[in-house]
């Protein structure tokens, strides 16, 4: 538009002034007031940068409040556990990562707190400062099952290869909880935690070798081993008389019920080994074994070997004395087992042929060669001719020594096809006669009325 358009199209006058309407440039004729020309109201969109509405109207973007709180909770947990800075940083990184993943972004705040604990747990495990899940659940005041579920999901999502929980590592941290140093209890009951831990670790290793640890919850085992090591460090009458209950009260920890069973099992193992000590003349019973514990632990490998050899010799002597053919050579016994299976009355067992040539011969160092075929027959028949391997080996997991009775399978189920005819008579047995139904209804009515009154 040239500035020199001089004539108004309406009235013809040349008195034209610039009179902007707000931001729009306009040229107006003074005499008649008509707008001669006007500028563009806005610029055309040149398409520079596409900025979304939410971005142009947003105030400075803040990180999620709950994420910040969660990170602070992670920090707090780390401080309570007194872990080092590296673990703290790792846990915070994991927490941020997991929090923003789809699986955890929309869960409840309680679960997010559990997630914080799990991040700390996994960082501790990765950086060699193991903490039990029990400790974390206690800190969070959460159900251990929930903690476990969140932990496993988090590991899967973040693809972490955490080392497996090993009880020996946690032993030291666990023993710190027991307040039985000389500051807390009288001198004769006190024990310094280093000695206690050392002996407890040796006891736990012995328990692991003799099938007590595997498959069991670790905390009662640790409690049992600490109790036994405390008793054995000074096996005087006072200590031996103190029950687990009183010990836990004194040490200010919560007693765990399974620990009693573990104590009994460990004492049994210690007795079995104590019997092999050459210089002990009297009989070793659970009551007097605590005095021998130090020697047993110091020489435990030798004693284990002796015990196994003695056991084997006893078994051989027994079988020769009975004169039966119950100790066949390995090949023959496996043949018998195979034939036994083919004619056996374990009808629902589906037999699966496998080539397992070396599986038959257990590895070297097997002091007990008779255990092999039983794995096959033990499962199917309820009246197995020979006892399971638990009965014949010196040390076996209690679940094998006292196995659950499997229900006897019925042989006629073998030929079911699923599409047979169903006779009316057997169906009728599932239906009440009208008279029975009426009586049942009446009885129910009477019962509900008598409950109301």
């Amino acid at each position, binding site marked *: 538009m040239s500035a020199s358009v001089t004539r108004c199209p309406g009235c013809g006058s040349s008195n034209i002034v610039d009179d902007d309407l707000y931001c729009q440039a306009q040229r107006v004729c003074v005499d008649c007031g008509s707008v001669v020309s006007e500028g563009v109201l806005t610029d055309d969109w040149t398409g520079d940068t596409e900025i979304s509405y939410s971005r142009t109207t947003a105030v400075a973007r803040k990180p999620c409040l709950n994420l910040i709180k969660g990170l602070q909770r992670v920090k707090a947990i780390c401080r309570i556990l007194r872990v080092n800075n590296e673990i703290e940083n790792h846990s915070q990184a994991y927490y941020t990562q997991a929090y923003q993943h789809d699986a955890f972004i929309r869960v409840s705040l309680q679960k997010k707190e559990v997630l914080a604990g799990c991040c700390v747990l996994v960082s501790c495990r990765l950086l060699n400062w193991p903490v039990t899940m*029990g400790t974390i659940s206690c800190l969070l005041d959460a159900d251990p*099952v929930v903690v*476990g579920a969140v932990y496993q999901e988090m*590991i*899967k999502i973040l693809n972490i290869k955490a080392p*497996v*929980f*090993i009880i020996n590592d946690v032993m030291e941290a666990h023993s710190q909880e027991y307040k039985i140093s000389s500051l807390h209890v009288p001198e004769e009951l006190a024990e310094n935690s280093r000695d206690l831990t050392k002996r407890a670790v040796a006891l736990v290793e012995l328990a692991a070798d*003799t*099938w007590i640890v*595997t*498959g069991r*919850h*670790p905390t009662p085992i640790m409690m049992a081993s600490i109790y036994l090591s405390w008793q054995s460090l000074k096996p005087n009458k006072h200590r031996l008389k103190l029950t687990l209950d009183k010990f836990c009260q004194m040490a200010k920890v919560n007693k765990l019920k399974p620990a009693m069973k573990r104590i009994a099992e460990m004492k049994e193992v210690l007795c079995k080994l104590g019997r092999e000590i050459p210089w002990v003349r009297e009989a070793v019973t659970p009551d007097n074994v605590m005095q021998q514990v130090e020697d047993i632990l110091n020489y435990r490998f030798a004693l*284990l070997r002796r015990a*196994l050899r003695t056991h084997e010799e006893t078994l051989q002597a027994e079988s020769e004395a009975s004169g039966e053919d119950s100790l066949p050579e390995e*090949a023959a016994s*496996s043949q018998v087992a*195979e034939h036994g*299976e083919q004619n056996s009355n*374990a009808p*629902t067992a*589906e*037999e*699966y*042929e*496998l*080539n*397992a040539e070396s*599986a*038959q011969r*257990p*590895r070297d160092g*097997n*002091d*007990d060669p008779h*255990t092999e*075929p039983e*794995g*096959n027959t033990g*499962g199917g028949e309820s009246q197995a001719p020979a006892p399971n*391997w638990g009965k014949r*080996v*010196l*040390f076996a*997991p209690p*679940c094998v020594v006292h196995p659950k009775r499997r229900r006897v399978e019925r042989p006629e189920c073998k030929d*079911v096809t*699923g*599409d*047979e005819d*169903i006779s009316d008579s*057997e*169906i*009728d047995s*599932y*239906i*009440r006669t009208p008279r029975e*139904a009426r009586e049942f*209804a009446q009885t129910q009515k009477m019962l509900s009325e008598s409950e109301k009154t």
Partner: protein
Amino acid sequence: MDSSNDEALDIIITNVVATFRVRCHLNLRTIALEGNNVIYKPDCGKVLMKLRKPKITASIWSSGKIICTGATSEDDAKLGARRLARVLQKLGFRVRFSAFKVVNVLAVCSMPFSIALIDFTVNNRPIASYEPELHPAATYRIKHIKATVQVFSTGSITVTGPNVQTVATAVEQVYPLLFECRKPLRK
């Protein structure tokens, strides 16, 4: 030459879960009143019916969907399901047996050796996971056949999968891995 080196591993099926539909609405009160061996659970909205012949427990919903558990083989489950449908038919409902499907099979198997669970887990990460504080067994999930194997240190394993064939395949797959991590049965 001779098969004295072959060993049969007994895979014992302990439970088969199957579902089916009867394509009609069921009155749970009638079933509870006129049926024998029946437990009515109004809070869950279902009726539990137990059959004797294949030992089966069935959960019956009023929509006509039924879940059968407790059978020891797939055919057993089918027979039990059909028996159940016949009972409902006799009770007066217009029943049509349809959509029978075996949903889950649970089997146990016993290895002739014990297993070192920690070695097994370390060798088979991330498919295997073992948390002794949570569960005494190591879990091995075979994704492509949708089977889960739980391995115990005594050598027993439990396998769950959508059908019997899957269970057999799972045992086949997991056996060499277990064999690698076996423990001598000494102590």
